[in-house]
């Protein structure tokens, strides 16, 4: 099943990815090939098969809800140039 340009545009928006004009056509083509390829899965007999989310079927381990982070905020925030007062700065969201 091939994808059309509108679908790819929509997927790119969902994924918050800006695609350049010149890469767009190639992306549509390659994504279509991938989707065609994975369509084979529809042939598998999976009635009553429980979906496997974890390869060892292990359950999520829980821990007590206690703050344990050991890394200093300043140290972490060194990887952004847009920090003030411990906050990350972004373009205005609300008017």
């Amino acid at each position, binding site marked *: 099943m091939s994808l059309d340009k509108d679908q790819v545009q929509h997927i*790119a928006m969902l994924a*918050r990815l800006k695609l350049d004009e010149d890469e767009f056509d190639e*992306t549509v083509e390659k994504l279509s090939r*991938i989707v065609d*390829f*994975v369509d084979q899965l529809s042939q598998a007999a999976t009635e009553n098969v429980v979906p496997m*989310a974890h*390869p*060892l079927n292990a359950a999520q381990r829980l821990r007590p809800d206690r703050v344990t982070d050991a890394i200093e905020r300043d140290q972490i925030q060194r*990887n952004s140039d847009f920090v003030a007062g411990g906050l990350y700065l972004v373009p205005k969201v609300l008017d």
Partner: protein
Amino acid sequence: MSQSSQELHLQTLTQLAAGLDSGEFSSVELTQELLARIENLNATLNAFVTVTADQALAAARRADENRAAGNGGALNGLPLVHKDIFCTQGVLTTCGSRMLENFVSPYDAAIVERLASAGAIMLGKTNMDEFAMGSSNETSYFGPVRNPWDLERSPGGSSGGSAAAVAGRLVPAATGTDTGGSIRQPAALTGTVGIKPTYGRVSRYGMIAFASSLDQAGVITRSAEDAALLLGSMAGFDERDSTSIDRPVPDYVAGLSGSLKGLRVGIVRQHFDAGLDVQCGAVVRGSLAELESLGATLTEVDLPNLDLSVPTYCVVAPAECSSNLSRFDGVRFGRRAENPVDLLDLYCRSRGEGFGAEVKRRIMTGTYVLSAGYYDAYYLKAQQVRALISDDFKKAFARVDVIAGPTAPTPAFRLGDKTDDPITMYLNDIYTTGANLAGLPAISVPCGFVEELPIGLHLVGPHFGEEMILRCAHQYQQNTDWHNAAPEAYR
């Protein structure tokens, strides 16, 4: 061949450890020699993103002091390199991507910590396919890595830099990660040993996530013995990784000895078909005969859903990566687009600029298969097929101890050969992805050559069967010499 007659760069970790212990050379001398080699040879291979020379020499001095004082862990003074997917405190961690080209990690990954506290010395961070997405190390923002066996060819991927560094004898060992085959396939294509442990055996804390239910950390070395040594320090429960399994770590090195008499080896009927290069198949059959001569019995087993491994992987891995890579939004770390008009523009352009084409494709594939209207047909379906694949292995392991076959369908291919069609590239992982989907431990060991290019034998064990596959690999290496062969320009 005794260690003192062999040049340092040709020695394995195990041999180097003995040399350090007996005082033949110091960690500083060893580190200096390898750093010099890296300086001379890396430009051609492009195996490194960062070389941490000063840090390495300081660590080497400390290792020598520790040794003199009678202290020091199991890996005291032994050199290795880390795939650039592992966070290393104070050191650039790029994941092969423009998105993180300036990212200096504020912390160490669990395996980086563990190996360092055992005394290992990090010489640098290796090049890799961007965000671990690739089988040829051609998607890296920092340029492709070349195979030391033939510089026009790929070393495989995504741990291509690690594999090339070890195969080229720039370093004796490297860490890697494996999501669909990214340790084992490059190991096969470069004539090195590559092991992916059982899912949950090694902590993923600090390992930049690609596909959380598939990713595992492992190593690329020149011998199974070395892999056993490193795995012993890396494996074990870590409460910071919520998928880490709490289970004692056996002494993998001690477990290497013991004959293969009576070992039941399964040969998969579906492996030796049209998809496998004929000459590769012949070499692998030769290695199976070798296992037989060591006492193993060969039995045919069935993995009826083998053909669906790659399509399943092509749904599950992108789906998980689309979620994991959503953290790269330009806000807190990583590339931020300049002069964004609004928040949406900030997200879209930061990610559009920061990610390469393959990464964007996988994120979009993942987004698509998880989107409303498609989730059931693709993602849910893939998870069901995953269960079938896992079941196939379970049934096989009721009859055999180990499953053996080729690691890759062809020897190393030329750079540029497979970049046009994504499917052709994904099919490199046909034999390896099953172990990721089923969470099984697997190792690739050099088992011969086709037209002077290395071929790998793939061994898969049941869950937590690392000891068994390491022993099988080690005994094979005690009786063969493939793993000692070095590429001509790197001897």
